[in-house]
């Protein structure tokens, strides 16, 4: 009996509460005993107001005056302050929500909706857990899927050993060339390849065998001219970098100390194709000095740059889509190889990719091959001096985006659409980025090469990763482009 009585009281209290709430929302309408509400002056509804206030006191906290309003200024920069700011904002939001939400809604929340909301979030959590575990399962069986929990883990666990080795050896070669080329008389371009082992197998140097674990790099070397950044004629060099190489360098040291003397003349018609120039000395303590050979059998001439090719319609044809995809993948992989060497101070541009022909062979035969570019971006040279007038100034958009990757995204865009973007300096990159970003949303740009490629270009153009995460970003990009290329050839076959 008592139970039913209590339940009855509870229901009556609820009913009164809803009534009171309705009254509170329309203060000029009072229940005057009739079945329909009548309009009465606000001074006459004192009893209703007192009843309403009683209910308010009973079921809700009176709106408290905020002694300290949350700051409207932007959040401070320190991490702890940001957390404090977030906590204060959440509290202020909670108070505001509590005051502004009507009682009936709050009761509805307490009775039914809270449970539903919490259950839905709990289900979502379980679903997310399942998806994560599914990806883990799939990534363990399928190497094309990479699952990253943290960038560091990716670097240590999933990074390709071969790639790390190449990066490291390139760094060694770069340091050695910089030490030798201290006067800055030479420009080095490095041949882009995704498979250094194949290069090693292809090159045959008489009376010399490469060390098992060494890596071979093919370079073009120019003597820097005053008028031109690099002359048309150049020499081919083969550099072998190995961790434990030692060469009897009594004579080679002298040769290498004046490397530029040996670069200029082309000793055509010589008996051997390659001549050992010597080892580049990194220092007395180092044992991994790269060994350099010169191709003396033929001369090499600069054919064209990638930018010059992009200005022509030769490769815009649909039959070259595969080659373009292959080129994009090659550029991404080589960008990853070179990231520790040249990229910190250089943004890749289409004119940095240069193609060569052997003087002895006709240029007609290999004119249509765009897959053997050499990359000139300060390899083997000291980084240029920075303009000190910019120090301390706001970096603007360039500060928010990773401009090296944005620059590379522009190269990918040009290769994808096969059209040249002419711009003078890096200062124009910001504007160009936004123009290209708008342009690249259009489907017709990529009607031949696909929307997935477009998405990758967009990712590059919007890239804001910090320098230490560039490797991870480029690794992902390279993998995705390789997949795209493979898928294309699978479809073709």
């Amino acid at each position, binding site marked *: *009996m*008592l*139970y039913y009585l*209590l*339940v009855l009281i*509870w229901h009556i209290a609820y009913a009164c509460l809803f009534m009171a709430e309705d009254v509170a929302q329309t203060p000029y309408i009072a229940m005057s005993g009739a079945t329909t509400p009548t309009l009465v002056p606000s001074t006459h509804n004192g009893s209703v107001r007192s009843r309403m206030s009683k209910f308010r006191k009973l*079921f*809700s*906290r009176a709106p408290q005056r905020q002694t300290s309003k949350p700051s409207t200024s932007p959040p401070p920069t320190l991490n702890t302050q940001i957390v404090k700011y977030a906590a204060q904002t*959440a509290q202020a*939001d*909670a*108070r*505001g*929500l*509590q*005051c*502004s*939400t009507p*009682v009936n*809604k*709050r*009761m509805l*929340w*307490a*009775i039914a*909706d*809270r449970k*539903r*909301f*919490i259950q*839905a*979030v709990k*289900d*979502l*959590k379980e*679903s*997310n857990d*399942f*998806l*994560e575990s*599914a*990806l883990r*399962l*799939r990534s363990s069986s399928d190497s*094309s*899927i990479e*699952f990253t929990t943290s960038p560091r883990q990716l670097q240590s666990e999933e990074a390709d050993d071969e790639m790390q080795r190449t990066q490291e050896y390139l760094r060694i070669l770069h340091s050695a060339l910089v030490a030798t080329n201290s006067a800055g008389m030479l420009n080095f371009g490095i041949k882009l390849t995704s498979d250094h082992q194949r290069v090693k197998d292809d090159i045959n140097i008489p009376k010399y065998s490469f060390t098992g674990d060494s890596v071979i790099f093919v370079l073009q070397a120019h003597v820097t001219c005053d008028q031109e950044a690099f002359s048309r004629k150049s020499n081919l060099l083969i550099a072998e970098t190995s961790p434990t190489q030692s060469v009897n360098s009594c004579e080679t040291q002298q040769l290498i100390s004046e490397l530029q003397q040996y670069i200029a003349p082309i000793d055509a018609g010589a008996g051997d194709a390659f001549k050992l120039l010597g080892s580049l000395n990194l220092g007395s303590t180092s044992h991994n000095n790269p060994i350099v050979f010169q191709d003396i059998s033929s001369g090499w001439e600069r054919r064209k740059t990638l930018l010059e090719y992009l200005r022509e319609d030769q490769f815009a044809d649909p039959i070259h889509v595969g080659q373009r995809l292959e080129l994009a993948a090659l550029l991404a992989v080589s960008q990853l190889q070179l990231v520790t060497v040249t990229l910190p101070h250089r943004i890749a541009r289409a004119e940095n990719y240069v193609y060569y022909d052997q003087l002895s062979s006709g240029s007609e035969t290999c004119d249509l091959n765009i897959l053997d570019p050499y990359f000139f971006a300060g390899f083997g040279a000291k980084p240029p001096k920075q303009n000190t007038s910019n120090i301390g100034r706001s970096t603007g958009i360039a500060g928010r985006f990773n401009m090296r990757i944005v620059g590379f995204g522009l190269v990918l865009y040009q290769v994808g659409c096969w059209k040249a973007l002419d711009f003078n300096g890096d200062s124009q990159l910001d504007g160009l980025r936004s123009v290209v970003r708008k342009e690249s949303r259009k489907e017709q740009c990529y009607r031949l090469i696909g929307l997935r490629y477009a998405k990758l270009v967009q990712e590059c153009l919007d890239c804001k990763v910090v320098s230490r995460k560039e490797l991870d970003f480029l690794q992902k990009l390279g993998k*995705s482009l390789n997949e795209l290329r493979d898928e294309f050839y699978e479809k073709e076959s």
Partner: protein
Amino acid sequence: MTVELALGAVALIGPSIKACSKAYHMYTITEAFGQDYIIARRKLQGQLARLEELSGLQLQMLVEVPKPESQLSDSVVSELGSMLANFEVCQDLMKKYSETGQCYTTYLF
């Protein structure tokens, strides 16, 4: 007789205390609505962020190219369906309780 009455009273008091405590619990939830709702919303946003991290290429690979021999893709698709339903529930509730009627989760799907 007295004992029976006493036992009857005890039998009545038990459920009534339960009802009172439930009513009080409801009252406290009503009182703490602001805090409570914001915590729930924050948890939802956390799950949303997790899904965003998982989405993109990785999920596309699982869903868009389902292998016939693998049950995994089917499970993922059905799980995504249930997630969609749950997000819709949360979205409706948030729409109901937000002042402006703004919903937060529509952009995902």
